[in-house]
């Protein structure tokens, strides 16, 4: 392999350490959570996550030749599997042992001085944070504010080496470990490893030029603003003239009035025509600016996106080596062929792809490729052939085909394994076609392998593949021929950025559905909805599809009555179709998909969000989840749609200046079945009650422009509205205010801090 090989390994090691840090962090927090969980049933998902992480870490460690680490992972994975199955009892000493082994892994992966693992606070005394006083502090320290976190005075400081506890380390590698941090000790701030990208200098210079160009855009906007300012001053002058003309006209017929009026009107006309010209020129200028700015932004965005592109090779360059090593370990022979390596893919997508590809290759070598002798017997060449090929599908989509000429997957065995592991019932198994059965291998925990080896066999690999692909907005499928081989197809987007999506509305909220999954949209009359075995179906293009209501899937309040016509979006993904009922369909938009941030790591049915042209943030739905949710929602459906209460929906006007309170109130009240309109302050509310019909008004007291008292007084002052009930909701808890509220004619006065949601709904029902 020579120098290049060593160099590559070194590079891989650095990449691996970045990845491992993530896994270790997750393992640690999962273990901690496991320790806190008392309900054995609730431990299951935690154990599941732990197994997955461990599995992935094992694979990654293998790839960079850290065999000791991989070995420990393997043992830990087995223990976790035993606990998950209930073969081993979960206990505090076991948890302790697991935690120490994970710390041992940390040291195996990050050799060097303690604390080198990205967390300077781990080993050093927490000087930065004086919350935990040092151990030497006498008990009577006057200013400790977290006594529970303070180790007893007799205990040595956390960083001092302690004699190892009497539990045997699992593997030879798991040498001296740090004692666990005392509970309650503040966690050190750990920053994520910083990724770097190489950028060709010409591209960098180009980017700088384009950024400089934006200065001219700024100037254009400022000249527009100036023009607009002048215009508004002009309009103020015009209002002035109008007022004078009106006064003149009111003063009645007198000598010279008509002439003076005519003069004023002429002046106004002149001013108006000047204004018109000015407006026109501003509009033209605005359009030109938009044009210019649009050009700049599009080029800049395109070039910046190019910064994110890396050749596909960069993710698979380590694979041939991995294959050689695994082959040696397994006593098999195989070659890996890469195709389409030169195609460029978004860096963030490549990062997501690495793990699933790694799992697939390991699975193929372990289960797919037969030993040389067996291959010869079957008349195949002794060396197996594995191909990873990336090709461009259309627009923004690409497909990775991972093909092998191994033993293939037997659908009957997959069914059998799924049955044994109770993933499906007998009846379901009987109904499954072979192709459907094969795709069960993407379910977590399903493994057809009777032997668990260090390479694979726990049935997690394929589940990770599916999960990663879906996270990217793609999907995974498998076809196989017994005896000849298997093809895994992974469909993925080429870049995250722009995509087309269908904007829909449901229960007053907007949502986007990626166009790539939308087959068509149509309207279906309520009469065409047929109930089949407690499920609703519609016939679209001659095909019977089950009808799912998006409002129910998204856990939003559904309207009391069905509309005469359903707006239907037919979704199409991974060969399945479903009809989705929404309230309104607005059309397709080009959007920039953004992630929801680290806190919202995975939200059911939501893939991300985008900012629309009007500044509104709109969630993008996760189509794969929608399919799954539709099934669950259909099963959960208890009452027939027509059987619900037909009481007239009360309409409520909410006047509240705080956006959060306004939205919360709207959600509470809509959840209770009211139709809700909102106003941002008193005068906004007054305009609304005058133009629309409401059953009740709920208003905040403190608002700009017109407060709640003034609004109530104005409503009471209007003959038509005098009977309209008004509820004042306030943060002011004073007797005078309460009395003032009653004085101006409010029907109820609720103090914000003391009322709960149910209370408000009750009051509204009582009053209206």
């Amino acid at each position: 392999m020579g120098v290049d090989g060593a160099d590559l390994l070194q590079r891989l090691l650095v990449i691996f350490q970045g990845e491992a840090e993530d896994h270790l962090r997750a393992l640690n927090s999962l273990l901690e959570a496991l320790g806190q969980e008392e309900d054995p049933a609730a431990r299951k998902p935690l154990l599941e996550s732990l197994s997955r992480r461990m599995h992935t870490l094992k694979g990654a460690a293998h790839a960079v030749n850290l065999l000791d680490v991989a070995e420990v992972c393997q043992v830990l994975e087995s223990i976790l599997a035993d606990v998950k199955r209930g073969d081993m009892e979960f206990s505090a000493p076991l948890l302790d042992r697991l935690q120490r082994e994970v710390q041992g892994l940390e040291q195996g992966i990050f050799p060097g001085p303690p604390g080198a693992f990205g967390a300077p606070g781990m080993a050093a005394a927490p000087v930065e944070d004086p919350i935990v006083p040092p151990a030497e502090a006498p008990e009577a320290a006057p200013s400790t504010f977290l006594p529970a976190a303070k180790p007893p005075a007799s205990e040595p400081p956390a960083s001092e080496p302690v004699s190892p506890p009497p539990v045997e380390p699992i593997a030879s590698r798991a040498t001296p470990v740090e004692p666990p941090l005392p509970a309650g000790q503040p966690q050190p701030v750990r920053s994520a490893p910083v990724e770097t990208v190489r950028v060709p200098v010409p591209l960098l210079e180009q980017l700088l030029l384009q950024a400089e160009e934006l200065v001219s855009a700024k100037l254009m906007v400022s000249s527009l603003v100036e023009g607009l300012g002048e215009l508004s001053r002009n309009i103020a002058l015009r209002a002035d003239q109008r007022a004078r003309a009106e006064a003149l006209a009111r003063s009645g017929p007198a000598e010279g009035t008509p002439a003076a009026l005519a003069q004023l009107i002429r002046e106004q006309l002149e001013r108006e025509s000047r204004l018109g010209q000015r407006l026109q020129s501003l509009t033209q200028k605005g359009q030109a600016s938009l044009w210019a700015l649009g050009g700049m932004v599009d080029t800049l965005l395109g070039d910046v996106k190019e910064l994110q592109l890396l050749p596909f090779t960069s993710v698979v360059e380590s694979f041939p080596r991995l294959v050689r090593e695994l082959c040696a370990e397994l006593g098999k022979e195989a070659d890996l062929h890469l195709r389409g390596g030169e195609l460029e893919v978004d860096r963030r997508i490549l990062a997501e792809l690495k793990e699933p590809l790694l799992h697939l290759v390991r699975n193929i070598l372990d289960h797919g490729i037969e030993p040389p002798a067996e291959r010869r017997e079957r008349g195949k060449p002794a060396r197996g052939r594995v191909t990873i090929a990336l090709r461009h599908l259309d627009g923004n989509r690409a497909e990775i085909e991972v093909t092998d000429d191994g033993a293939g997957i037997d659908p009957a065995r997959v069914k059998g394994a799924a049955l044994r592991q109770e993933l499906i019932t007998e009846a379901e198994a009987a109904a499954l076609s072979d192709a459907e059965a094969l795709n069960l291998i993407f379910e977590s925990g399903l493994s057809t392998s009777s032997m668990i080896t260090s390479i694979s066999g726990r049935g997690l690999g394929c589940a990770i593949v599916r999960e990663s692909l879906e996270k990217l907005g793609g999907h995974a499928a498998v076809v196989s021929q017994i005896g000849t081989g298997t093809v895994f197809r992974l469909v993925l987007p080429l870049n995250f950025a722009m995509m087309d999506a269908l904007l829909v509305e449901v229960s007053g909220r907007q949502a986007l559905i990626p166009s790539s999954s939308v087959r068509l949209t149509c309207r279906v009359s309520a009469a065409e909805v047929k109930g089949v075995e407690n499920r609703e179906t519609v016939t679209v293009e001659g095909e019977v599809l089950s009808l799912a209501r998006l409002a129910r899937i998204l856990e939003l309040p559904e309207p009391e009555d069905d509309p005469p016509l359903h707006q239907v979006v037919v979704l199409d993904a991974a060969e399945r179709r479903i009809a989705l009922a929404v309230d309104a369909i607005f059309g397709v938009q080009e959007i920039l998909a953004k992630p929801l941030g680290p806190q919202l790591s995975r939200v059911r049915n939501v893939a991300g969000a985008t900012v629309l042209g009007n500044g509104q943030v709109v969630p993008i739905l996760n189509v794969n989840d929608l399919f799954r949710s539709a099934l669950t929602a259909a099963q959960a459906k208890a009452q027939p749609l027509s059987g619900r209460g037909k009481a007239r929906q009360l309409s409520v006007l909410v006047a509240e200046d705080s956006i959060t309170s306004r939205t919360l109130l709207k959600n509470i009240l809509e959840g209770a079945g009211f139709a809700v309109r909102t106003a941002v302050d008193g005068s906004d509310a007054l305009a609304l009650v005058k133009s629309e019909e409401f059953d009740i008004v709920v208003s905040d007291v403190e608002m700009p422009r017109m407060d709640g008292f003034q609004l109530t007084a104005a409503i009471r002052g209007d003959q038509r509205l005098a009977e309209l009930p008004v509820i004042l909701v306030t943060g002011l808890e004073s007797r005078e205010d309460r009395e003032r509220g009653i004085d101006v004619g409010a029907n109820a006065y609720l103090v914000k801090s003391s009322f709960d949601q149910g209370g408000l709904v009750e009051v509204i029902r009582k009053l209206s």
Partner: protein
Amino acid sequence: MSAQQDRNTIADGTAGVIHAPPAVAPNPAGPKEILAARARALAAAPEAETAGERIEVIEFELSGERYAVRAALVTEIFPLTDFTPLFCAPAFVLGITNLRGKIVSIVDLRRFFELPSVGLSNLNRVILASDGVMEVGILADAIAGIVSLPVAELQAPPAALTGVREEFLTGVTGDRLALLDLGRILADRRIVVHEEVE
């Protein structure tokens, strides 16, 4: 071993600081007096000032109660002008908003703390907190400002309190300002939403 000694030396230094007599005696008097006392303490000669004796905190109001978080983990504070509620997310997630092109999730700490009765309030400010890994916007009614808090003024929270909020409470001051452990909130698994469709 020399590193160990170094740490001990540092620890000793810190210990000395922590045991220094409180600059302001715990005072149950009104906030005005306390502020005045603080102002006096701030105006006093800085020779007694050592790192660790005071901490910079951001004080904010939440449903009429006063809280503070250490300023170190606060990236910025911005007014909440618009946000989008998110479907299928737990109640403590108010929604998402657009901060200069980045989507930021906003958390209502009152619901995260599972406080029994959550009334309405004017949650119009967002404290953006980040530890480099986790980033989240925290709702507040109003921001009182950055306060330099003498460590000595902090007392352990009453032992009788055992809610979710108390888990994240570092201490309270004499004038009932509750200092939350932001680092711990950011590192807590419960704040992360990770839900699959069953």
